[in-house]
Each structure stands twice: as structure tokens, then as C-alpha cells.
């Protein structure tokens, strides 16, 4: 209830109903992209270790476990 009473004026679009599916799809695609950068060992990208080696320095400096 308090959320409704405190609803604020905003320029942001209201996301409702079917658009929740779109939003979930967008998040899934973004997480897949982050996965390819940060965690892929070739199993998903089928690139062997090429992507892994190419992004090697980035993974270390973004702070994710690398090897």
C-alpha cells in the first residue's frame, strides 16, 4: 500500500504483463554475453579456448576467477 501512496512522478515507462517476458529475455541475453566474457571455457561458444584466451586479461582485471 505504501508503494502506491508514495508513487513518484517519473519519465520511466511502466512495465506490465507481457513486457515482463521481454524484460526477462533481455536479462537472459545480457547474462549470456557476460558469461561468454567472464566464464566461458569453450563449452558454450564452441570456439575451443580461443574466446577464453582472447578475453584472458579482461577476466583477471574484472575480478572473476580465471584459472
Amino acid at each position, binding site marked *: 500500500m*505504501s*508503494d502506491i501512496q*508514495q*508513487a*513518484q*512522478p*517519473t*519519465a*520511466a*515507462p*511502466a*512495465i*506490465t504483463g507481457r*513486457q515482463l517476458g*521481454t*524484460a526477462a529475455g*533481455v*536479462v537472459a*541475453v*545480457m*547474462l549470456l*554475453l*557476460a558469461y*561468454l*566474457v*567472464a*566464464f566461458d571455457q569453450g563449452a558454450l561458444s564452441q570456439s*575451443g*579456448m*580461443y574466446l577464453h*584466451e*582472447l*578475453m*584472458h*586479461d*579482461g*577476466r*583477471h*582485471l*574484472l*575480478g*572473476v*576467477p*580465471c*584459472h
Partner: protein
Amino acid sequence: MPLTGTPASRGFAQLLIRGLLAGLIAGLLAGAFAFTFGETHIDAAIAIEQAAAPPAAPGTAEEEPLVSRDGQKAGLVLATTLYGIAMGGILATAYALLRRRLHTRSDPRAVFFLAGSALVGVVLIPFLKYPPNPPAVGDPATIDQRTWSYLAALVLGLVAVWAAVVAARTQQAEWRRAAAGTTASLVVVAVAYLMLPSIDEVPATFPPSLLWDFRVVSLGVQAVLWTALGLTFGAFVTPRGTPASPARAEQTTAA
């Protein structure tokens, strides 16, 4: 069917494009920071790694690396840029879904809150439990366990931020809200740190100052990324033609 759809879906698409663009900018800036301050530490760590590796058997050619060191340095900026774009898309979606639940009248302030939450929950809390390691540190045999532990710390970091918000909203006075939020998140972090497995794989011979410098730069890369992402996307969602702040508006009216 070009650009038809409900106003809300058009609005979400525009918001998403701005988020991806803000992520691109933030990722490039983080890449420039990482390239400038991080590569010397990576090079130094790789030199230690190679000095420790057994020499190639006589008569066999040295193994050709899959990607050259120069390729990896270019790949660094590619990695931070793609990562930035992904985080920009997630930030824009989170903003669209949560904007009306955040108790502030200011759209950019809502963005700053979300980006700040990500910096604490997704970066700082996992960082303090599992600080990142340069090459030559870490046992390849435990990479799966370390990856899952890291992801668990990341999820628990988001839980800590959520707990802070929930606890703060039970209180009225400003100082009680701050105290409740801080206490709730610290309790979640303390329990999470105790439950998550400890990892200590730094070789005794690895230079401590190099390890420290690498970790500081690594934290800096994420700080640059989320700060730039928050500020840029915050600028993108600021409605045009509205006064920057109520105080500014009064000054304008008085003048």
C-alpha cells in the same frame, strides 16, 4: 511493423538502447583504465608464471600460444566493453522494472542508487571474500569450485543490498533507517562470509606487493565501470527541460 507498439514498449526499447550505449561508454573507459594501470601487473605475473613452469623438453618447439600477448591486451578492452554493454542492458531493465518502487522523485537519483547497489552487491562484497588473482596464482584444479563460490558471493551480495532496503523501510527517522539498513546488510554479509568456503591458493613465493597492486587495480576497473555506467545512464534518463534541482528552480524563478 516499424516502431509500432504500446507507448510503454517503445519506452522500454528506448531505455534499453540508452542503457546499452551507456554500457558501451563505461566499458571503453574501464578498458582504458585497465589497459593503463593493469597490464604491467599482468605482464609481471605472467613472467613469474613462466619462470616457474618447467622448461620445454629438448628438441620440441615451444608451444605457440592460442592468442598472442598483444592480442590479449586488445582482448582486454573488448572484454570490458562487452561486459559493460551487458551490465548496461541489465541496469536499464532493472531501472524499468524497479523505478516505481524506489522512493525518490528524481529519475537520475534512482539510477545512481541502482548502480551504487550493483557496485556494493556485485563487486565489493564478492571482492572482499574472493579477491581476484593475477596469473600464476590459483590452482586450475579448483576453478569450478572457485567459480561457483564467487557466483554465490555475488548473489548473497545482492541479497545483502535487498535486506538493507527492506530493513530501512521499516523505520521512519533518517538515522534509524540508516542504522537498520547497515545492520541488516552487515548481518547478511557476515553470515555469507562464514558459510562460503575459504580459498587460499596464493603461493608463498608470489610477491605480496604485486598481488596487492593487482587487486587494487582490479577493484578500480569495476569502480570505473559502474561509476561511469551510473553517471552516463543517469544523464540519459534525466528528463529534458526540467530544472536540475528544486533549489536551482527557485533561483531561476527569483532571477
